[in-house]
């Protein structure tokens, strides 16, 4: 087995293992903290896929910002009091069945489809290539995200503020 394959299996184990903790832990704070190794595992996967800029952004946004936001909200609501209420609804068995069926379907599709391949090579310097695409074909996407960010900022402030 090559080093890359070993790295892949280790990272997949970290991602899925802590993902299971996120999904099943009875304590919401433990779930939120377990999100960090999940995100870091996915970061490693991005590195293996030679997308290093996306990888560092994953750490910066997911592990550094979204996790903090989630922890804040847990501490602001009654989730912060630890294990108290029942965390799971009565659909546990059905939910597991649906998720397993979905996983089977997706894996079957992933394995059986003969994926098309376009020629070309990955750029070695990803931030530069991404920047170039923002200056060219993705210019509108770039400006569009700023509008999306503005809208969500305004919306979230309106929702979260106390009514006077």
């Amino acid at each position: 087995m090559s080093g890359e394959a070993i790295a892949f299996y280790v990272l997949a184990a970290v991602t899925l293992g802590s993902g299971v903790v996120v999904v099943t832990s009875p304590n919401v704070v433990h779930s939120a903290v377990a999100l960090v190794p999940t995100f870091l595992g996915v970061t490693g996967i991005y590195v293996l896929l030679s997308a290093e800029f996306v990888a560092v952004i994953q750490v910066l946004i997911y592990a550094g910002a979204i996790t903090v936001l989630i922890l804040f909200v847990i501490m602001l609501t009654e989730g912060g009091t630890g294990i108290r209420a029942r965390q799971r609804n009565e659909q546990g068995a059905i939910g597991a069945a649906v998720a397993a069926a979905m996983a089977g379907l997706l894996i079957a599709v992933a394995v059986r489809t003969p994926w098309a391949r376009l020629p070309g090579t990955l750029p070695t310097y990803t931030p530069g290539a991404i920047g170039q695409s923002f200056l060219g074909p993705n210019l509108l996407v770039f400006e569009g995200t700023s509008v999306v960010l503005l809208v969500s900022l305004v919306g979230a402030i309106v929702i979260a503020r106390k009514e006077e």
Partner: protein
Amino acid sequence: MLLDWGYVAVFAIVGAILAALPLLVIWLIAPRSAYPQKLETYESGVPTIGQAWSQFNVRYYLFSLVFVVFDVEIIYLYPWAVVARSGGALAFVEILIFLVILTLGLVYAWRKGALEWV
């Protein structure tokens, strides 16, 4: 490039082991003489009342909310900064529009008092 990140991974793993090493040492040599009062949560000398896990001011959330939006804005500036030299006027105008739209968000948050600590 994979080699670079291999080094970072080794750094993280070995670093975590090194940081945990002192904890192993104290587990081996530190004395143990705990009794109930010693294991009590510190609250300036008076008996602890209730759990600390209670609810806090919503202000904390508003700040982290504005933070997340601006943090996401920043990730788009890094790739732009790398190519801005070759991009010329187009790059400048592009970033100007981007920043103006986001400044509107900052102004809105400011006017609505999301940046006030009451």
